[in-house]
């Protein structure tokens, strides 16, 4: 009995010791910064001088800041295009690959390859692909007699180009998640439905779709959180241009915080972005719940 007590006491100590590193790191690099972000949003801070309390000034400034609204609009534009297209493309290819044919594994690997490149490598490659005169895309369009546009140099098409590139680079990862979701649906469901005389479409609508609700929710949540924080692609491909067409919210936060040293203002925008992401995630949750 005494022995057991000793073991329990020891475990209590060792257990806490083993989890100490992640807990400490969380306190120093997540909780403290979170509190600082809230605090800094109400100050004027340029790193060189001590933060000055400025009340709601940063938030009022945001309302009248033309560039904030441009960045928000660009980010929304990217999200509205990328999230649904990304979902459709990854679900579509997953359904396509959910087959018993030969060489499915090989094609799965080939579809997945672009995911392995970093965002910078992908953007550098696409900078070349989208070159108006020599690039691969306009070259292929040229074969079909189409005179391709200037893509990244056209303010109307620049963001669309970034969406196109992100789809190419990212769909494979979510396709794999959907595939593992599809593999989890018991084959007996489909057999039973076949016996009942359900057609292909009906089987998709009443078995596949409902079984994938959880996966769809997961993928769409990750997509939304990711797209509202889009930065790398716009930074490498277009530096926010042409004519601010690809300035995103995170890009604007980065510029304010690290180029203009408006740390207070940058923190205020990041807090607003945080609230936007939380709201969108909740809305997404409601939509997914309604579908069940």
């Amino acid at each position: 009995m005494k022995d057991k007590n000793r073991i329990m006491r020891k475990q209590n100590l060792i257990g806490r010791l083993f989890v100490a590193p992640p807990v400490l790191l969380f306190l120093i690099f997540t909780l403290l910064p979170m509190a600082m972000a809230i605090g800094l949003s109400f100050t004027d801070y340029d790193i060189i001088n001590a933060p000055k309390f400025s009340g709601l000034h940063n938030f009022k400034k945001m309302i009248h800041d033309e560039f904030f609204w441009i960045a928000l609009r660009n980010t929304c534009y990217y999200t509205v295009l990328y999230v649904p297209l990304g979902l459709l493309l990854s679900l579509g290819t997953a359904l396509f690959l959910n087959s018993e044919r030969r060489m499915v594994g090989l094609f799965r690997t080939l579809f997945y390859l672009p995911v392995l490149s970093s965002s910078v490598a992908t953007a550098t490659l696409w900078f070349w692909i989208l070159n108006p005169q020599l690039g691969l895309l306009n070259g292929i369009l040229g074969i079909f007699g189409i005179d391709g546009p200037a893509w990244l140099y056209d303010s109307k098409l620049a963001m669309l180009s970034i969406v196109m590139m992100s789809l190419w680079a990212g769909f494979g990862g979510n396709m794999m998640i959907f595939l593992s979701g599809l593999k989890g649906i018991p084959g007996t469901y489909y057999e039973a439905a076949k016996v009942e005389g359900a057609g292909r479409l009906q089987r998709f609508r009443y078995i596949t779709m409902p079984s994938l609700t959880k996966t769809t929710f997961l993928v769409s949540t990750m997509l939304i959180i990711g797209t509202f924080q889009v930065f790398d692609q716009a930074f490498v491909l277009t530096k926010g241009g042409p004519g601010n067409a690809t300035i995103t919210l995170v890009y604007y936060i980065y510029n304010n915080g690290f180029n203009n040293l408006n740390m207070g203002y940058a923190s205020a925008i990041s807090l607003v972005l945080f609230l936007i992401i939380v709201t969108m995630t909740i809305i997404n949750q409601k939509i997914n719940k309604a579908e069940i």
Partner: protein
Amino acid sequence: MRTKKTFGDISWYAGACLIALVTVYPLLWMVATSLKPEKEIFSNSLSLLSKNFSMNNYKDVFDTIPFLRYFINSMVLAVSGVVTNVFLGALAGYSYAKLKFSGRKLSFAILLSSMMIPGIVTMIPQFLVLKYFPLVGGNNIFGQGGRGFINNYAAIILPGAVGAFAVFFMKQFFETLPDDLAEAARVDGCSEFKIFWKIYLPLIKPAAMTLGIMTFQSGWNAFMWPMIVLNSKEMMTIQVGLSTFQYQYNTSYGPLMAGTVIATLPTLLLFVFAQKYYIQGIAFTGSK
């Protein structure tokens, strides 16, 4: 019936080849461009083949910028991330799965919730915490006077040493193992660390490999945070170096593609040799 099936097969394979062409052709074209002399890049840009393949573009990248240094920096950072995340993640995951201690449920819930906080919100304050960290990089006890952890490997390694994901991931795998493995060892007076290290850890090797690969990939490919905290020329990572190279020499497509190939090679090779661990990692993400 038979012809219908064959027709279905043919159109499936045709579709599969078409999609594969879209995903793979640009990558092949990247490699082809990196091997072409400049003249041919402009005269014969679309072709995958060339009569004069050469490695000159690769030589150019290393001559123009300290690309080898960037490569080493990235390798050091990515490998450190793997070591700390796998070891500390396993340690904490094991503790949450197998040990009883006070504050267990609460601290785990808090860690989990931290996965929901988007990185951008904590980015600026995290930079400040690193810059004003007391007693390092020339800082005094109040964090003034020096540069703290900025332009030091620790600026990446320390905040990312063990994320909530690593702990959560490892905990799931330790939970599948039986409790009584430890009982006998405990009675024999074996230390808790030894039980973890000698008995439990070897049993989840595949999971540790999977976590290691995922950590390596995200460390190697990271861009924004390394750009912010490692900005001096000799501390840059390969991704940051490539992006500045792209900015400065944006018409030297040959060397540019050579740099891109090199920056992609490690993750590509890892994928080729450890594909089954990748699939496991993805299956786990899907089942969260």
